[in-house]
């Protein structure tokens, strides 16, 4: 479903007969064309973030980043990731264990339900929590009378982020654990090992690189989510503003350099994610 990133192991070149190869100039023309597409479509937006961020010099750049509102947005973004990523990781491991180690009816249906958040627009992903916890929502009256605020506050941001990043870890682990089978675990249990011991000593070492791969993608989306969080945040500066929302606020105030300076922090997050992701995928392939 949308949002899934299959882990690609290093591609091996098939030996091909001579008659199947394109002539050299066709080959290099295609490579050149592909490089142009990549530069235009993907690399250019990356470069422009940096050039726009530094357009008015380092002082403006640094001022935008150490600005108290930006710092508080950074703290909120990190806090949301620190809470949501472990929760979805625990779910992902549990769901993958149930789905890959046992046979039961409706397994395919359960996998479809887990994938559901990828098929739903992020705006709808945020909106459903407004319908449940908002002022006029199902639980709105009760929450209000108990002075609990969920929408336009931290809990709402966490819930919307949980929804958006829900499938990442499970999706990565299910095919991986399916491939690995369960002979090792079964052998250990037959020899008398306890369930948790089997998980920590056998399963976890086997899946750790795939698990980290899912976690890093989950984290990137948790820190970068915009649409869903935008619906539930309320955009209160210094309080419920995450980094991506801060980019939007500055941009709408025509503080372009500052907006791109904050955006460049998120660009660093994306690049670190790509590097780690490649590393985990290579480790997993071995």
């Amino acid at each position: 479903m949308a949002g899934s990133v299959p882990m690609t192991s290093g591609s091996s070149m098939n030996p091909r007969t001579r008659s199947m190869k394109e002539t050299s100039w066709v080959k290099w023309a295609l490579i050149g064309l592909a490089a142009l597409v990549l530069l235009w479509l993907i690399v250019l937006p990356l470069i422009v973030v940096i050039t726009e961020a530094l357009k008015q010099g380092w002082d403006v750049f640094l001022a935008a980043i150490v600005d108290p509102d930006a710092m508080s947005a950074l703290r909120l973004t990190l806090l949301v990731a620190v809470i949501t990523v472990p929760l979805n990781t625990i779910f992902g491991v549990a769901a993958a264990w149930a789905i890959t180690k046992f046979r039961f009816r409706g397994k395919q249906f359960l996998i479809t339900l887990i994938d559901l958040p990828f098929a739903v627009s992020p705006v709808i992903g945020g909106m459903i929590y407004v319908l449940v916890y908002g002022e006029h929502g199902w639980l709105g009256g009760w929450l209000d009378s108990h002075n609990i605020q969920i929408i336009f506050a931290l809990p709402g941001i966490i819930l919307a982020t949980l929804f958006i990043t829900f499938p990442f870890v499970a999706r990565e682990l299910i095919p991986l654990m399916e491939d690995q089978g369960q002979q090792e675990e079964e052998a250990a249990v037959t020899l008398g090992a306890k369930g948790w011991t089997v998980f920590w000593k056998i399963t976890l070492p086997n899946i750790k690189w795939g698990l980290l791969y899912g976690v890093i993608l989950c984290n990137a989306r948790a820190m970068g989510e915009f649409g869903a969080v935008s619906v539930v945040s309320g955009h209160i500066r210094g309080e419920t503003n995450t980094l991506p929302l801060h980019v939007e606020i500055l941009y709408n105030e025509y503080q372009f350099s500052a907006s791109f300076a904050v955006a460049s922090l998120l660009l660093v997050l994306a690049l670190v994610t790509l590097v780690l992701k490649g590393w985990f995928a290579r480790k997993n392939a071995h």
Partner: protein
Amino acid sequence: MKTIATKRGVLPGFGLTMGYSVLYLSLVVLIPLSALLLNSTGLTWGKFWDIATDARVLASFKVSFLTAAAAGLIDAVLGLLLAWVLVRYDFPGKSIFDAMIDLPFALPTAVAGVSLTAIYSDKGWIGSLLEPLGIQVAYTPIGITLALMFIGIPFVVRTVQPVLEELESEVEEAAATLGSGRVRTFLVVVLPQLYPALLTGFALAFSRGIGEYGSVVFISGNMPMKTEIAPLLIMSKLEQFDYAGATAVALLLLMISFLLMLIINTLQHRLRKTAR
């Protein structure tokens, strides 16, 4: 020792992991999503129909679906080129090339949105070149399509790439031995085997494009009837506390995208069958 050979197998933990998974899935996904269907907003069928046939709503759906389809189609062509080059050729910088394909997955959509707007606005690197030619990209459907192309391209490359790697070379070799030219071999032998993967890649990019918000909202200009996408219309209805209206548009968007995915899945099933 307990009897361990149960019906499900010897491994423990089914009750715990299954129970927890279903509980967590219900709390985070199913119950909140059901708020849309069980409609807590007092939406009636009559009202739903009024909203669904409202000119502004229809216009936003037209913009969303046309731009997402155009972006998906262009991505299918460009993605095939990128996947082909990555699988079939060796060249310097290939691993960086390969890694960069995933940037749209890792980059927050709002960052892509502001960056693309800066590139294609009339003062931007590309926008300023196109302006004298009378071509406006930012704040038009072309801009929306470009943003959705950025978001969708990895889906196509990452679905086509593994299929292209697994492709059996015998048929290709046979065609070549029988004197078929390279272009003809590609069109007649290789391409048909890639149709299911291309269709999947298109479908993933398309469905992501229909729901996309962050990368589009900056470059679209958000003019009602012209460049307003459906997710943005939901957003503006929410901001006006028109929850019934927002629910109606959201339900419509969900129903149409599920229907389309169903059609595409069926098509794909057929394609796979005929490919064999």
